[in-house]
């Protein structure tokens, strides 16, 4: 399982922490928490606030992820808009533009939650 991070806002710091602290441990189990190119990944983690302006780019990034592919929505903003639920500029959850497999709640979630979410994908099938 290889992960690419759509690092849109502060939740991306938690992703970075997960890579720094749990990256080696995850690698022993065949999980790469960060890759260079989206074509090398099959999990897209959306961490942060998706704005309407940026939504087409997030979708374009998802289209470059290798099959079979999964999407992890990481944190309140990616899940629902979070504290920006009523904003004129924020997409109310990344599920409005791409299909989501796992939602991780929290504002922000802990780094361990990211690792758990990605581990939970192992064994799940998807085209």
């Amino acid at each position, binding site marked *: 399982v290889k992960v690419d991070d759509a690092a849109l806002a502060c939740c991306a710091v938690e992703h970075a922490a997960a890579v720094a602290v749990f990256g080696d441990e995850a690698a022993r189990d065949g999980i790469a928490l960060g890759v260079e190119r989206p074509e090398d990944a099959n999990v897209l983690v959306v961490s942060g606030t998706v*704005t*309407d*302006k940026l*939504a087409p780019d997030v979708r374009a990034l998802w289209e470059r992820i290798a099959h079979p592919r999964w999407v992890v929505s990481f944190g309140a903003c990616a899940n629902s808009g979070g504290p920006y639920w*009523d904003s*004129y*500029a924020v997409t*109310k959850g990344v599920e409005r533009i791409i299909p989501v497999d796992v939602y991780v709640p929290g504002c922000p979630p802990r780094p361990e939650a990211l690792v758990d979410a990605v581990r939970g994908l192992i064994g799940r099938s998807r085209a």
Partner: protein
Amino acid sequence: MTAVAASEVLGSRVAGLFVREEAIVVPRAAWVAAAVAARELLAARCFDFLTAVDAAAEGFLVVTGLVAPGGPRLLLETAVPVDDAWVDTLTGVFRGAAWHERETAEMFGIDFRGHPDPRPLLLSDDGARAHPLRKDVALAERVETVWPGSVEPTGAATRRPQVPYGVPPSP
């Protein structure tokens, strides 16, 4: 230097300006001339910001902050009618005004005439068409959401019926 003193200096070149609180209010036709005069007569070489205020009955107030390094800070303001919302661009005087004018244009629906690149800056195309900082524009999510708890009684003359933030009270 006070706003009054600054307005007297600018008044030697620009007619029809007056001071309101800290701001020097300029006729719309003299908007660019006032910025040029501020730079040349008061050494206000530094463009700080440009934005607008929805002042309801007064229309929109376009405001810009200019700074003379080591000297006065100036607030220039001009009134723009809502149904005729335009003002000349300041980009010919301060290039840095370009992004501020693009943001103000999309947020308020004010046309900055002569702007070299009037595309929306921060909002999506749909968002930019909505002009979300106009006070009569409601936040759709606020209107649609059912709010928990009781609504304030509407009979009392001194209290407005409670509406969510971002939703104009019904007339």
